[in-house]
């Protein structure tokens, strides 16, 4: 404030003298006019300044602000400051994979997927890591409203090949297989993750629940039969479910290792308000796949979702 005032006074005084000088060289009224004009200029400028001026307001150039941010506790930063912090880190070291990855994730979480994808791609160019491919694939999926596009599938395939233990790529590859109608492949991907994850890993339960939900859906173009026949006569739906159950029973008799079949059968029984039949279907599935922990996890997840007691076949 003091410096600012001094600067302004100096400028104003210099301008006033410069303005008045030609008049001060004359005599009489001209000198008075000169003095008045100089005063008018300097004081008027200050007055005009103070109409909207904010002499106490500090400037905020970017570099000093970033230096202060870098020194601050990251926990105390606002989201905008966190983003600026990450951008600054990337700007200072474009090969900083971790900062770039975090920035990409931040951008993806704030619906700026295109920019996030660009950051993941640049990070991959520096270091082609599985987690970067995974982030890239997930962001592409989000951008495409949940659809696992060929680009996303390529990213997940690479990530899965690099690190088969990583659950997310396998989950999305399973989802892609499921979208393509290949339930066996989907079950294999999802089952693979479930067996790799620890029993108490929260991801294991989440993935098993989601996989069980998807694999138990009747294979009718991917849609729920009840939804497909919305508005239709009720007997038609029941007849349809009866027919589906009969076909499933036949199929499972021929191929008892079809986990999706057992799950679908249990779901169909529940649609018939037959929890005992559903529990029986799950128990038979468990019995048919005794050495497959992934299948057992899926069956347990679906049973839990339906609120069924675990029974023996």
């Amino acid at each position, binding site marked *: 404030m003091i*410096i*600012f005032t001094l*600067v*302004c006074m100096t*400028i*104003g005084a210099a*301008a006033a003298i*410069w*303005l*008045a*000088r*030609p*008049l001060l*060289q*004359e005599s009489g009224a*001209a000198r008075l*006019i*000169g003095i008045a*004009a100089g005063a*008018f*200029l300097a004081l*008027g*400028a*200050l*007055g*005009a*300044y103070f*109409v*909207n*001026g*904010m*002499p106490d*307001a*500090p*400037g*905020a*150039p*970017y*570099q000093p*602000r970033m230096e202060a941010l870098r020194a601050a506790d990251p926990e105390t930063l606002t989201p*905008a*400051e966190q*983003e*600026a912090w990450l*951008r600054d880190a990337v*700007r200072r070291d474009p090969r900083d994979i971790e900062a770039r990855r975090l920035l990409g994730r931040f951008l993806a979480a704030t619906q*700026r997927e*295109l*920019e996030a994808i*660009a950051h993941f*791609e*640049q990070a991959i160019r520096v270091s082609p890591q599985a987690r970067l491919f995974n982030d890239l694939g997930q962001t592409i999926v989000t951008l495409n409203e949940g659809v696992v596009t060929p680009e996303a599938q390529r990213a997940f395939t690479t990530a899965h090949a690099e690190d088969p233990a990583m659950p997310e790529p396998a989950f999305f590859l399973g989802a892609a297989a499921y979208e393509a109608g290949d339930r066996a492949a989907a079950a294999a991907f999802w089952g693979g993750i479930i067996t790799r994850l620890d029993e108490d890993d929260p991801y294991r339960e989440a993935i098993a629940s989601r996989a069980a939900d998807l694999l138990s859906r009747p294979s009718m173009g991917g849609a729920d039969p009840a939804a497909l026949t919305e508005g239709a006569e009720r007997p038609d739906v029941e007849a349809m479910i009866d027919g589906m159950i009969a076909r499933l029973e036949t199929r499972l008799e021929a191929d008892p290792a079809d986990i999706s079949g057992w799950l679908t059968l249990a779901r169909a029984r529940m649609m018939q308000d037959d929890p005992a039949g559903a529990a029986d279907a799950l128990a038979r599935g468990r019995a048919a796949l005794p050495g497959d922990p992934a299948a057992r996890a899926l069956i347990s997840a679906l049973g839990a979702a339906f609120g069924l007691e675990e029974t023996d076949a």
Partner: protein
Amino acid sequence: MIAEIGRFLIALALLACVAQTFLSWRGADQGGRSGAARAGAAAAEIAVVAAGFAFLLLIISFVRSDFSIAYVATNSHVDKPLLYKISGTWGGHEGSMLLWCWILVLFGLGLARIGPRDPALRARAVSFQGLLSSLFFAFLAFASNPFERILPAPIQGADLNPILQDPLLAIHPPMLYVGYVGLSAAFAIAAAGLMQKSGGRELAAALRPWALGAWISLTGGIALGAWWAYYELGWGGWWFWDPVENASFMPWLLGAALVHSAIATEKRGAFPGWTVFLALIAYILSILGAFLVRSGVLTSVHAFALDPERGMWILGMLGVSAVAGFALFALRAGSLGEGDGFEPTSREAFIGVNNLLLAVTAGVVLIGTLYPLFVDLMGWPMISVGPPYFDASATPLLIVAAALMPVAAFLPWANGGAKPGLKQMRAAFLLVPVAGAIIAFIAFGAPVLAVVAGGVGAWALCGAAMDVGVHWRAAKARAARFSVMGRALAHAGVGFIALGAAADASRPPDINRALAPGESLVIAGHTLTLEGVRRADGQNYMADRATIRVDGRAAVSPERRYYPGADQTTREVGLRSDWRGDLYVSVGEARLREDGEMVYELRAAYHPLVWMLGFGAFLVVAGGGLALTGRLMSGAPARVRGRSDAPAEAAAPSEAAEARA
């Protein structure tokens, strides 16, 4: 603190302009040599220094990305390249208004230092310029201050509109503003002359260099804007009769009329009132242009979207300037005097007819530009006035003006004689290439207006060539030769522009097609093959760059860019130019075709002889520059007399011959 010092400097410049107005006025009353007049000039110096430093501080704030300044926060971004951080200073309303104001006071200082020779007229002109500057600085200080603060400051800026992040856009606005604002000097001299009851000749002589300089800059600015629109906006047009384009075109038309009218007034005393009127109205239309661009009353890619309150400020400035100028004109036009008279086939008669055509064209453009606003004001159903109206009304008038243009240079002043003039011009001989151009355009299937424009373009070119051939030898002095060459170049430029516009209007239809890599399309006999598309990210944007092979050889590389800071997508066109024309390709969105192939939307166009537009504009600017140089070298303008004044010519034959040239 930088921002607050900048704000103080703007306030200081405002007060300096007010002081300039009053002190110079008093100085003019005292004959123009008193201390008050010198103090008025000193005030102009203070305004220039203060506004210049304020502008410098704003640039520094952009470079330092100080987002506590609202204008910087809305027009910049940390990741923006340095060039565009700097050019962003005048990329938005407030910064460009500061630039406008700085140029205003620079012209004020120019008038104070090298203005009219009559000291009283000079001081009065400096005073009027101070008044105009005060109006704009008040608007800047209180309604459009570029140092307005935003606290707490955002950590990141919103970025400059990506289509403005272009090297041409860094120089187009300053040139345009020098043109717009330069006309204020002509206004100030005209108003001062009316106030001082100066003679028409004296006034014309005083304002002509200023008007010419401003008009040259306006020409350059408009040409750069058209070029930018051609390659940046992605649709291949260079002129669309957009209201903002019209806002610059109207002062240009009147500036062109003024530059020529001033010659007739200066040399023969013809049209003194008209010349002064043009000087007043040309600047008033400049302010009208500012109103159209900055009030938010219309939508355009060029416009600053702003609130109506600022529009009212500009309307107020427009009102003050118009009332002051026209009231003076109404009261004092009689003091400008009468010319010596002329015959209908004299040079001044042709200049007068061309002036009339240019002014009517400006009127037609004004009506077309303002009519939608008027309709909106009346609450009638919305309409838009577009190219069909202007092509049917303004273009034919311009074609007639261009057709008459080459003839005037061969006609004598005052006592006329079209026949000897046309004979000297060898008009019949020149009609051969004109007919050739017309036949060529017809053969290429050009529309009627393009055929006519092509013929007129050839006519103007031939006339300009003949002008040099005939008048170069007659002009002995270097200044006169500059004038002859300047006129010929400028007129040749008009010819090239007419030819280029006619050729572009005859171009084959554009092709829009989705291509997968390896696929081709054919346009104007050229096969364009999409080789592939790859990422080509820049400092502050992400881009898909297509590689398109032309006839299996050279490649063009259009881009589709996404600017995350501004959340906007732009197209960077790929151009392949040779003397025959431009192949113009832009790439659009990628999509999955039904057959599963990833395809890219391509827009391909062929613009024959489009280079002539730019070259023509360059020649107009170069010609204007030579004419201005010649004018400045010659010093006092030569007064040309009619045949009845032969003894005077005999007394000073070389001077008269040069002036005739």
